[in-house]
């Protein structure tokens, strides 16, 4: 933690960056995103196991970008987000600096290549509990799955916390917000919720960095991240491509192989 605070202090003092996005003390025991803009505030930065939110979401926010060059405290999924955002031309190398938290210490990653190397060493595996849940769901009958999601999504109020907290949901206009035609109903009734979460999962297939921040953000505890995880895993299983692996675009859903193997087209 000191290491990080010192690095932040140094960077800000030398004004190598204008802001350090990191974690700070929140209400009670919680952690919250903080934006350190003066060397003397570097002490506010906290690093511990409670720091699980993917802060990369802020890298595409106009208000944050306006501050100048950014150093961002990065957990593995944050690093993957940076690469995917770069691949999608949303991020320039010179504008961001990753402070990767690796076993307590901090590693400064200034180039996408460096981040790629770091990411390459991270195993793809998602959280054990999440994987268990996905396996449990896939083992269910289709009817049981429908019931499961009907119940879970029944609580959705379309507050879009999942979308807003997702680093890859940076679109200025989401499909949800298109009203000519109104692709997806605005109201959070059963159909509206089902369609919304379906679209989101599809749009993240091949782009999801598996941070789970969307699920964590949901105020009513819907495991929406399982949908994007599943979509991402489907892509990986079938095409061997994945989101957030490289700063060069390799998007499974806009590429193809003539010999892609399916079993269902008659």
């Amino acid at each position, binding site marked *: 933690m000191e290491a990080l605070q010192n690095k932040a202090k140094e960077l800000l003092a030398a004004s190598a960056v204008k802001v350090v996005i990191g974690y700070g003390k929140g209400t*009670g025991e919680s952690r919250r995103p903080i934006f350190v803009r003066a060397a003397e505030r570097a002490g506010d930065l906290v690093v511990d196991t409670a720091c699980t939110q993917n802060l990369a979401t802020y890298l595409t926010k106009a208000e944050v970008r306006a501050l100048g060059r950014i150093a961002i405290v990065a957990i593995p999924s944050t690093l993957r987000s940076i690469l995917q955002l770069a691949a999608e031309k949303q991020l320039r190398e010179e504008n961001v600096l990753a402070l990767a938290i690796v076993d307590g210490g901090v590693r400064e990653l200034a180039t996408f290549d460096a981040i790629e190397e770091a990411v390459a060493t991270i195993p793809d595996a998602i959280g054990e509990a999440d994987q268990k849940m996905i396996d449990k769901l896939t083992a269910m009958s289709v009817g049981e799955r429908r019931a499961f999601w009907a119940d879970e999504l029944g609580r959705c109020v379309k507050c879009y916390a999942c979308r807003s907290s997702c680093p890859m949901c940076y679109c200025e206009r989401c499909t949800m917000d298109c009203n000519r035609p109104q692709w997806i109903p605005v109201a959070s009734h059963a159909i509206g919720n089902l369609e919304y979460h379906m679209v989101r999962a599809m749009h993240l297939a091949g782009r999801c960095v598996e941070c789970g921040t969307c699920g964590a953000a949901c105020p009513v505890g819907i495991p929406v991240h399982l949908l994007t995880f599943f979509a991402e895993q489907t892509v990986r299983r079938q095409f061997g491509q994945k989101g957030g692996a490289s700063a060069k675009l390799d998007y499974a859903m806009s590429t193809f192989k003539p010999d892609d193997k399916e079993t269902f087209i008659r």
Partner: protein
Amino acid sequence: MSERYTITETSVGSFLQAMTASGRRVLGPKLVAGRIEIADINTFADVVQNGQSVVSAKGVVFPKVERLLKYRFEGKNIALEDVEPQAQPTVLFGLRPCEARAFHALDVVFNWDSKDKFFNTRMANTTVVGLSCTQADESCFCTSLGSRPDDTQGSDILLSPLKAGGFVAEVLTDKGKALVALAKDTFQPLADDAALVPPATVAPAFDAKALQQELAAMFDSPLWAEQSLRCLGCGACAFVCPTCVCFDIQDEADTKQGQRLRAWDSCGMRIFTLHASGHNPRDKQSQRWRQRVYHKFAYYPERLGTLGCVGCGKCSRACPVDMNLKQHLAQVAEAASQG
């Protein structure tokens, strides 16, 4: 003048049965999958006595999605079909006093100029049995708004736990009386030595009245940008809020039929104020955050004579990035005092 009784926990059980027996739907704070939800209450054991539900009870009188009318295309003509709000008599049992007070903030809007049939019908069919808080958390700030954890306002009956077990039931309205009448014998007259469990202590963090004055001068403060930097612009705060009343009207139609829906909306979202032209008067998150604060703490009192907030803190708990309203308001007050 309100009537005061005592009621034992067991009698509360039979009181609940009486309500159900009378065809009333009984909802209240209940633990579901580790979250407190406003859900069906069958026995007293279901009632969570402290701690806030994630989403408020607002939906009972102002559902997240509500059908206002239906229509059918008959050839070139459109056949309108007016929809009557179906409002089952409902008891909100064991509601937090802050939430009970929140219905007033909805009422002043739904009956401001036009009288909203849907809201009023649902409200008329709703009886609120409040339950004084004996615990609170860092997000609670009712006391900063001139209220208390055992505030009676908004409840038809307010229950306050007794040291010796059971509750004091303060029957505040005719609705409350009607409810008591369902099981009169479950209520005993109040003994003089009845000692209440002390209500939760919630230290005031600021003074809402003063804040209202101070805001007038703070519209251009850099604080809004500062505070909202981490705000993601989602609607979680508004959708869990017991007083947020913004809604969107949506027509869903095909070539055969259609319906007009009223659905929750949130001023925190970018497209809330987005014009068709692409121009957005509240394009920045800081402007939207400021609007949220001003609406609840300046515009409401100015125009509607009441606060647009009850200090329940649901927004703070629901926020994915821990936008703590209490802290933020305290910060505003402090900044104001420094001028």
